[in-house]
């Protein structure tokens, strides 16, 4: 009984809680997370190449985007194919507000983020309200239809969106390419570097917010709904409201990230912000990393983006190493083929994604002890 007071022996649940609290600074994953944050923070100092800095920030952006998709698909069990669309909304909001209708000022930048978030939240609520009550497949199809439609609009309304060519917004003040503030630790502090750190901090903040979201009582309820919706309903939970909150939350996070993406690449077009290819990438990343893990996105984004950046260089390596052999040069050209093989191997050896499978193995080992 709980009323027995402090003299009563703690139940196993209380004991585990006390243990968890005492061990919270001794978790290996805590230091892994800190090390990862440090790696991202030190990248501009340690990696002088712009290509590598670009890769690092894109990994951070996509890892966070995948995590926001994971909140929806992995933690709530809602299959959406429109997640990249909200990312595109955020990106286009920045592009339109700064590059087309407004000017490169902080005010328009803030307005862009506010609009991106509001439009995404509103559309996510509308789509959810009309199609979440129906079966899961229907929601997937509806979101796919909306994503396609958004893409077509962005291409067709070229007087608004710049069509296929897109928009290249200029950024204000400290984000501008021309901005410089001397050298710190041997690094030129220019608009690029400032943007890198601001976007990184936003990614970090969003990641922490999502982590709190999925571990809160609300997040636990989402996992219950994913596991057995009928049972959750029979406990008295309005499952529809919870699903609506989850899908809208994920969409809003995606919109913020889209805005950050546009700030980083300083360019928005249908292919880079709204295409189905981005959705497929996010899907691949969440499968590689593991659904329902949140951190899987980091592995998924790192694997996919690194492979995509470095594998095309294989050809150069091939030409260098086998100058005489045309067959070997040809083989190194087919980098997509190797990526396909890599993906199959990951799915084969990590059926629940890298993080998901590792977690499962660890918890099984703990249980065996």
């Amino acid at each position: 009984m709980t009323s027995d007071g402090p003299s009563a022996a703690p139940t196993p649940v209380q004991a585990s809680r006390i243990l968890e609290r005492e061990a919270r600074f001794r978790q290996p994953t805590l230091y892994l997370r800190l090390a990862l944050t440090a790696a991202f923070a030190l990248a501009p100092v340690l990696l002088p190449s712009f290509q590598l800095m670009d890769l690092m920030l894109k990994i951070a952006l996509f890892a966070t985007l995948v995590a926001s998709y994971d909140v929806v698909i992995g933690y709530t069990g809602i299959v959406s194919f429109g997640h990249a669309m909200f990312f595109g909304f955020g990106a286009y909001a920045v592009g339109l507000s700064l590059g087309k209708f407004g000017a490169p000022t902080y005010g328009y930048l803030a307005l862009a983020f506010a609009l991106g978030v509001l439009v995404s939240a509103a559309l996510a609520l509308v789509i959810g309200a009309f199609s979440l009550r129906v079966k899961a497949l229907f929601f997937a199809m509806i979101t796919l239809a909306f994503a396609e439609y958004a893409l077509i609009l962005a291409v067709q309304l070229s007087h608004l969106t710049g069509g296929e060519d897109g928009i290249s917004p200029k950024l204000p003040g400290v984000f501008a390419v021309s901005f410089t503030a001397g050298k710190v630790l041997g690094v030129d502090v220019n608009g690029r570097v400032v943007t890198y750190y601001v976007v990184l901090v936003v990614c970090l903040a969003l990641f922490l917010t999502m982590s709190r979201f999925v571990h809160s009582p609300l997040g636990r309820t989402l996992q219950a709904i994913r596991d057995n919706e009928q049972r959750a309903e029979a406990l008295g939970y309005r499952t529809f409201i919870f699903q609506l909150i989850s899908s809208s939350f994920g969409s809003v996070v995606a919109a913020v990230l889209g805005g950050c993406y546009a700030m980083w690449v300083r360019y928005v077009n249908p292919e880079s912000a709204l295409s189905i290819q981005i959705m497929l990438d996010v899907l691949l990343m969440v499968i590689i990393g593991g659904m329902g893990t949140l951190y899987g996105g980091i592995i998924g984004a790192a694997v996919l983006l690194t492979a995509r950046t470095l594998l095309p260089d294989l050809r150069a390596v091939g030409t260098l190493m086998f100058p005489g052999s045309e067959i070997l040069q040809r083989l190194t050209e087919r980098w997509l083929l190797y990526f396909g093989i890599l993906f199959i191997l990951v799915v084969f050896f990590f059926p629940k994604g890298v993080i998901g499978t590792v977690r499962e193995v660890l918890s099984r080992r703990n249980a065996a002890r």
Partner: protein
Amino acid sequence: MPAQPLISTRHLTIRFGGHVAVDRVSLDIEPFTLKSIIGPNGAGKTTFFNLLSGQYRPTEGRVYFKGVDVTRLTAAARTRLGIGRSFQLTNIFPSLPVLENVRLAVQAQRRMGLKVWRHSRRFPELEDRAYEILETVLLQSKWNALASELAHGEKRKLELGILLALEAEVLLLDEPTAGMSLEEVPTIIGLIEAIKHRRDTTILLVEHKIDMVLALSDSIAVLKDGRLIADGTPEAISRSPEVQAAYFGGGATGA
């Protein structure tokens, strides 16, 4: 004067296409009693439960809870009013730990499901209450296991625990011992008896084990082909020739 019935149905009917699964059933369930519903397979017992708990909407007729018409309310809304149900096929959260299964029910009962700003482990009172309930259903040693790893009988105990956590005024128990081994049945009967003796909960039980029904029930209703053919004390029901023919007779002809 008898007290107002806790749950009443009036002419409750549901049709699936041409098939009338529940046919004009008018039944009263008195507060703090245990009423069993028996009848041959396909008599409409589970369908009747689904109408009470809100999984189905009736074609005709009404469901009243404490005199209030709840016919149009969803299952979730009825649970919040105090009608909790268990399912014939085990219905738990398989990929979540045992304690979490019950904790979610405690969280639902205390209306804390929408809290989002704090870590769920920062609400220790929910976990402690869930553990207490696991002790009641004799499952405390498994608190850390995944629900999917439990034996069948343990899953039924877990379901009962989830139901207890809701602190519902009415428990709808749909064959709580279905598929259980003989050794496991007495534990469940003991649990139901313990709840019954608290005299603060009304229990509606669908069960095939007739000796268990006769021993536990305050009253028994008999359904056949969707119709209510008898309603009375266990003694009266076991003596009723109509019931003998419809229900007990089925087994007798086979013997």
